[in-house]
């Protein structure tokens, strides 16, 4: 495959307009293009060029819940959202807790071809929280697993968490913790606060997240291991992570687009499209999360894309599934919450949505930068566009977007994966 593309006049990471020449899967030149003979030309005036986005946290649901999402539909959604790599969480059925399952997911990703799929391995067998899964076998498999998580559940046993943190040091792995103290959150439905009290929904207190994060930071420091904190949702969590990073400990963290934009007040109508774990919190939490992402306390944005079929959401709040889709709206929400508010420039967006998640995921050959000589994974984005979010138009098999009906800025125009377009003119290529 020898494709040559000339992207004319895009602004790399929001900088001055430049031409980007892509040949044989590599960015050959930025600015002073050499021979452009035979190149397909894209007029990218006014568009931002970003290094292909990397998602550390998505639920692709295959194997087991192909009615909600498949690797094919989930990665199509990812590409349309500007992503060139996604991490597929382990809570599938069967659980991704063996080399066999992670290899299957990895191969499904290769077959789909919309973006790279990096399976996340389960920390414990069957997510049971009691016995370590064969982490080494998953690391050594062709899927090259480096991120391990029981996401959806917390590794709440302190000894098991310590062992997992220690064990993955042997292959430069990282434990991504879903921080939720289980006893404090039995039956929890919604952020514990004014809204949960009024609605009579069982509260999910921020302290249940913060207590686990504090414990895990101390454990990671004690054994000198790498901890990644999934979907940080509260102001208190940001404080604790800032403190741990100040100590020089190997702690990283992510925040979801929905936690950057939406509050628990949306639950007032009991529509479970707003039911998510950890829950939507308050405006004060949003402010702290945005500040944490801006100052680098929170390393990256990760979608926690969690598709569910309609019947799992068209129920009473208590019985509905937790989770929201997010791959196709993530960059637009980040523009709304972070760029249009002046908190991040586009270079910082490139850092938080590509370079840093690639580094945390230990992805080989991905630097998350746009420069001559690197693999040409590029996202072209129009920040001047605006449109209503319509989940019916999404490539995801599920429709549970909390942004439905909201007008958001931006449009992903094109996505290139190692020189090959996966999205052109906002449609799958």
């Amino acid at each position, binding site marked *: 495959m020898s494709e040559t593309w000339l992207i004319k006049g895009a602004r790399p990471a929001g900088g001055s307009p430049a031409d980007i020449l892509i040949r044989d899967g590599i960015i050959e030149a930025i600015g002073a293009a050499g021979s452009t003979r035979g190149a397909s030309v894209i007029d990218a005036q006014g568009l931002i060029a970003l290094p292909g986005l990397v998602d550390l946290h998505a639920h692709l649901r295959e194997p087991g819940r192909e009615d909600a999402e498949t690797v094919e539909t989930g990665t199509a959604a990812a590409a349309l959202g500007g992503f060139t790599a996604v991490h597929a969480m382990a809570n599938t059925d069967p659980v991704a807790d063996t080399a066999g399952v992670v290899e299957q997911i990895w191969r499904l990703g290769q077959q789909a071809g919309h973006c790279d799929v990096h399976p996340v391995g389960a920390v414990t067998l069957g997510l049971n929280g009691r016995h370590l899964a064969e982490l080494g076998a998953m690391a050594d498999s062709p899927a090259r697993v480096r991120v391990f998580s029981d996401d959806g559940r917390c590794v709440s046993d302190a000894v098991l968490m310590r062992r997992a943190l220690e064990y993955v040091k042997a292959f430069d792995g990282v434990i991504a913790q879903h921080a939720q103290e289980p006893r404090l959150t039995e039956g929890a439905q919604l952020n514990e606060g*004014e809204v949960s009290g009024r*609605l*009579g*929904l069982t509260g999910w207190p921020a302290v249940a997240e913060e207590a686990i994060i504090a414990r895990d930071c101390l454990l990671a420091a004690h054994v000198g291991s790498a901890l990644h904190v999934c979907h940080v949702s509260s102001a208190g969590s940001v404080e604790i992570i800032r403190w741990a990073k100040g100590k020089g400990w190997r702690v990283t963290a992510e925040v979801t687009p929905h936690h950057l934009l939406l509050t628990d007040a949306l639950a007032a109508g009991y529509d479970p499209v707003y039911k998510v774990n950890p829950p939507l919190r308050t405006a004060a939490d949003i402010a702290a999360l945005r500040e944490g992402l801006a100052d680098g306390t929170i390393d990256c944005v990760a979608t926690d894309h969690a598709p569910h079929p309609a019947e799992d959401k068209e*129920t009473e709040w*208590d*019985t509905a599934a937790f989770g929201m889709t997010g791959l196709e709206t993530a960059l637009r929400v980040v523009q709304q919450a972070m760029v249009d508010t002046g908190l991040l420039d586009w270079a910082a967006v490139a850092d938080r949505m590509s370079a840093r998640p690639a580094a945390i995921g230990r992805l080989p050959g991905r630097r998350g930068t746009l420069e001559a000589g690197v693999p040409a994974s590029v996202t072209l984005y129009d920040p001047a566009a605006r449109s209503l979010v319509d989940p019916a138009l999404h490539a995801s098999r599920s429709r549970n977007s909390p942004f439905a009906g909201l007008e958001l800025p931006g449009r992903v125009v094109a996505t290139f994966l190692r020189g090959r377009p996966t999205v052109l003119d906002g449609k799958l290529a």
Partner: protein
Amino acid sequence: MNRHLISAADLTRDDALLILDTADELARVSDRPIKKLPTLRGRTVVNLFFEDSTRTRISFEAAAKRLSADVINFSAKGSSVAKGESLKDTALTLEAMGADAVVIRHSASGAPQRLAGWVRGTVVNAGDGAHEHPTQALLDAFTIRRKFGRSSGPAPEGRLPGSRPSGGTALDGLRVTIVGDVLHSRVARSNAWLLTTLGAEVTLVAPPTLLPVAVGTWPCSVSYDLDAALPKSDVVMMLRVQQERMTDAYFPSVREYSRRYGLDAARMAQLPEQAIVMHPGPMNRGVEIAAEVADSARSTIVEQVTNGVSVRMAVLYLLLGGAEAQS
């Protein structure tokens, strides 16, 4: 007024007074030998009860029947719901059968609001999880009005000056103390919103474990000390204590709860002379309320049940456009 009655918080002061005044009128009908009105003839009211609550269901059933509505009782037990049918499919079934109103009791907070999105008819919340029980609050307000002589129409004994002869007045200035498991109580929520809307000063008394963490945002005072609150109470409303709260460590033992937050004769003696004692039922005698208190002259517990029918008649009458049907 809204088409549905989901939350007491949705009621304006005028809405609430209209319901209470209407209930006053309908209560007079209940004193007649023939208790039936033709108002809702040909209309269908479905009692959709996902939780066992014989008292509330019978009260709604009596109310609908006295207005001549056709009543269908749908109990979730032994029905298609027990076989896994979703609330939405149940709603669509009722819709297809032409229900004009659905009275729903459900263990999940918000179920009535979800239902209202799926049916064309009127939805009346008969208690949803720990959220609300608006007709209970209305019947409590109705009972308080009667007891303090603020109802409309013929004056009951002990009528206070300042009450209107035609329409009744609100509860301005009355001090209501609600005692018990506020955290899990739909009765407490509905009463807190409604009685405040009607001008009462509401104080919540409970052990700190049984109050929502953000109770400070509610339009109520909060106290942990029942003995301090009682002398300043015109109304004391005792909430039922569920047995499982003890096993979940909300308090150490039933006996300790009863000693600190139960209403016994000695505590009742601290109440002002005119004060009344209320309980939504069913009671745990000897736990939150002593038998001698429940059976005392101050107790309105039996009247509350009677008043429940009149208030529910008023709600169905007003929501189903009974006034228009009659004219």
